[in-house]
């Protein structure tokens, strides 16, 4: 017996103390049953030997083993395209890049997201609406293309062996109400929308009352109502569907925050004999969550899809810090702006009949589910923007600004109860409240897809495709979005939506 034990100790130099004592007690108590003990012992010995062999093989040069612990979640050291921001825009771009790559595994794409719970991402805090009632043809076409994508979502985003995507799309049109001052704008918008192929109808106050008997038409002189391709859906589902599909196609997800870039600057002389520095990003610095560890990722192209924080990302490259009146002095005009959404309960509300109503006072509401709940909100006045350091909700804002307009428009809402509320950040473009899509003239390899200010979710499918075209084909193929490029900001020519609110 003691000889056995010696053998044991000999072949298992790595055996830990506790294991040894355990072994001993085990040996003591099962002394009486000789045969099974021997059996178990040899089995155990074999397993231990295998472990030794493995360790020896690991320690040989050429194997992947190292005495230092390596974080398995570190991003790869090299990639072709790094997308910063794993919101719906970022993942849509990732999907389309894979979809349009010419050969399988042709581009190596990674998506860097600092917060995988998406606790502050606009995508999941949005109202989830899609409309075609814009005034710029570009925006209308983006909506039409995105609606088409959503209609055929399972042809695009279904993954073999997994459940089909159910966006929970609710087919209810947007209803815009116009007052006397803005009715002419609504009419113009209507004709632009019809021209672009959107199914929209204009309603007089009488027709409005006939169609929506629960509305108070005081002050309304014209209404426009979307007949098709409008409604709302679950943003989480869209985000997850893009993500699932992109990852099944080989996109690498990486959890970490981009905290800096390594870049080179080339000085060139312009026609006016001015010195201009052109930057080229060499690598992206990805900081791992909850640790000091970081990993530089070398890459050819960076996509800035960081939503509300994309302005901060651009600052890391010195955008906006150059001398005034030069291109380098123009910052990316995107900043977070806090918007509240209130969930109200009102059993006597308009029910299934509810459109996505947008009043000329700026208040909007829509139904949420079937249990008599509605969500409502409004953008504050320019001078009264709330503090953006947190996502706390100002309930006063509802009482003072939203409820009066809401109850005026729909008398049933006099008796509503606020049941909950949340706040989210718009990726607000302070220059003209529209998306910025394309490359910056002074940063050679950073593409922007940001600044959508309240309609980024609905446009994400079409925007992703456009950015992928820009990167892989060099220009827009299906939808020409060159008007949404950076040039308009440098030349100070805003592309404003003619809103009725």
């Amino acid at each position: 017996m003691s000889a056995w034990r010696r053998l044991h100790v000999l072949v298992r130099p790595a055996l830990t103390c506790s294991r040894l004592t355990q072994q001993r007690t085990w040996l003591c108590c099962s002394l009486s049953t000789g045969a099974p003990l021997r059996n178990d012992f040899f089995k155990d010995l074999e397993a231990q030997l295998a472990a030794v062999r493995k360790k020896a093989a690991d320690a040989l040069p050429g194997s992947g083993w190292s005495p230092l612990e390596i974080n398995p979640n570190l991003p790869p050291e090299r990639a072709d395209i790094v997308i910063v921001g794993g919101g719906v825009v970022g993942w849509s771009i990732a999907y389309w890049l894979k979809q349009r790559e010419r050969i399988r595994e042709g581009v190596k794409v990674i998506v860097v997201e600092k917060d995988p719970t998406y606790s502050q991402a606009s995508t999941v805090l949005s109202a989830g609406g899609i409309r075609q009632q814009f005034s710029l043809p570009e925006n209308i076409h983006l909506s039409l293309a995105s609606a088409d994508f959503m209609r055929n979502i399972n042809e695009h985003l279904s993954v073999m062996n997994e459940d089909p995507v159910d966006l929970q799309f609710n087919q209810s049109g947007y209803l815009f109400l116009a007052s006397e001052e803005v009715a002419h704008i609504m009419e113009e918008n209507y004709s632009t929308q019809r021209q672009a192929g959107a199914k929209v109808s204009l309603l007089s106050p009488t027709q409005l009352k006939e169609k929506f008997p629960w509305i108070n038409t005081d002050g309304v002189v014209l209404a426009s109502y979307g007949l098709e391709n409008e409604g709302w859906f679950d943003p989480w589902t869209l985000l997850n569907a893009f993500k699932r599909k992109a990852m099944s196609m080989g996109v690498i997800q990486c959890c970490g925050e981009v905290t800096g870039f390594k870049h080179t600057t080339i000085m060139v002389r312009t026609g006016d004999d001015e010195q201009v520095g052109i930057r080229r990003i060499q690598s992206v610095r990805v900081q791992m969550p909850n640790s000091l560890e970081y990993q530089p990722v070398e890459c050819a192209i960076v996509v800035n899809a960081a939503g509300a924080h994309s302005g901060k990302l651009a600052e890391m490259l010195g955008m906006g810090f150059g001398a005034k009146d030069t291109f380098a002095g123009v910052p990316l005009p995107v900043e977070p702006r806090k918007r509240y959404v209130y969930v109200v309960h009102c059993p006597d509300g308009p029910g299934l009949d509810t459109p996505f109503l947008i009043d000329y006072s700026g208040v909007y509401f829509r139904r949420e589910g079937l249990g008599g709940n509605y969500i409502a909100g409004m953008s504050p006045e320019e001078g009264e923007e709330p503090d953006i350091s947190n996502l706390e909700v100002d309930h006063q804002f509802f009482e003072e600004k939203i409820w009066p307009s809401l109850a005026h428009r729909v008398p049933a809402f006099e008796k509503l109860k606020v049941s909950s509320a949340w706040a989210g950040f718009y990726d607000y473009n302070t220059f003209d409240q529209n998306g910025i899509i394309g490359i910056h003239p002074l940063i050679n390899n950073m593409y922007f897809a940001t600044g959508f200010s309240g309609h980024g979710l609905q446009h994400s499918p079409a925007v992703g495709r456009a950015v992928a075209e820009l990167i892989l084909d060099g220009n827009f193929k299906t939808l020409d979005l060159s008007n949404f490029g950076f040039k308009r900001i440098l030349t100070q020519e805003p592309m404003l939506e003619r809103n009725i609110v």
Partner: protein
Amino acid sequence: MSAPLTALHRCCQRSALLLVARRPWSSSSASPPPLHTRLLLYLAQRYYDVEMLMKWSSNLKKRGLQKKNAYYGYTQKFYGGDIAAAYFILSLKGRIRFLGQPAWLHADQSGKFNWDFLNHKDTPLEEVDLSYTVINYTGLGNLERQGSLRTLSLRGCPEVDDWFLGRLHIFQDSLEELDISHCPRITTGGLAALRNLKGLRRLDMSSLPGISSPGLVAILLEEMLPQCQITAIGYDHSLKQEEEEEKEGQVEAQR
């Protein structure tokens, strides 16, 4: 140190996703796929060839569907929209009745039909029965200008979905009777679009597997379309007895 943390993080994230992704009024069909589909899926997971074959066959099916629902532009150009619509429906093995004509026209078992319908040039359709056909959103485009359509049956159409219902506004001024029973892909989100059909008098929404609380939905639809008589049978109401009773009460009150 950071590895277990991130693992935990991930775990939380996943459960968070699961929690949020399902909304209470989610409406996915509950029944699992039949055995042979599951077997194929299992094989596809293991063998690339099977996966390829499955992709191939699904593409083939898709193309067939596309062809059947193609836009009949050529016919429209030469015979007008009404004939094109009639031709499209007959090819799908649907049935039609022209405005002011007593007889229904339809294809026989083998899909052949009488070409006499060509005589009804510029007569719009009044009744269309597309039950158990493969019409989809694109195919509906062929009926775009049928402003006199009074009844439409889409009973048991596998390709009719919420987007299809969203497009029914093209008949908003005329449609009085609509049968969407037994359509597997319709959910509550699509039924909301029926609000555009204010002239609807009769709606059959029986046995829709995609809606999760049919009793409630029927009540809401009745509120939304007060002139319309709604039929909703074929649901297991064991859990929703109260709602059902309430609904019946309402229907009676209306009568």
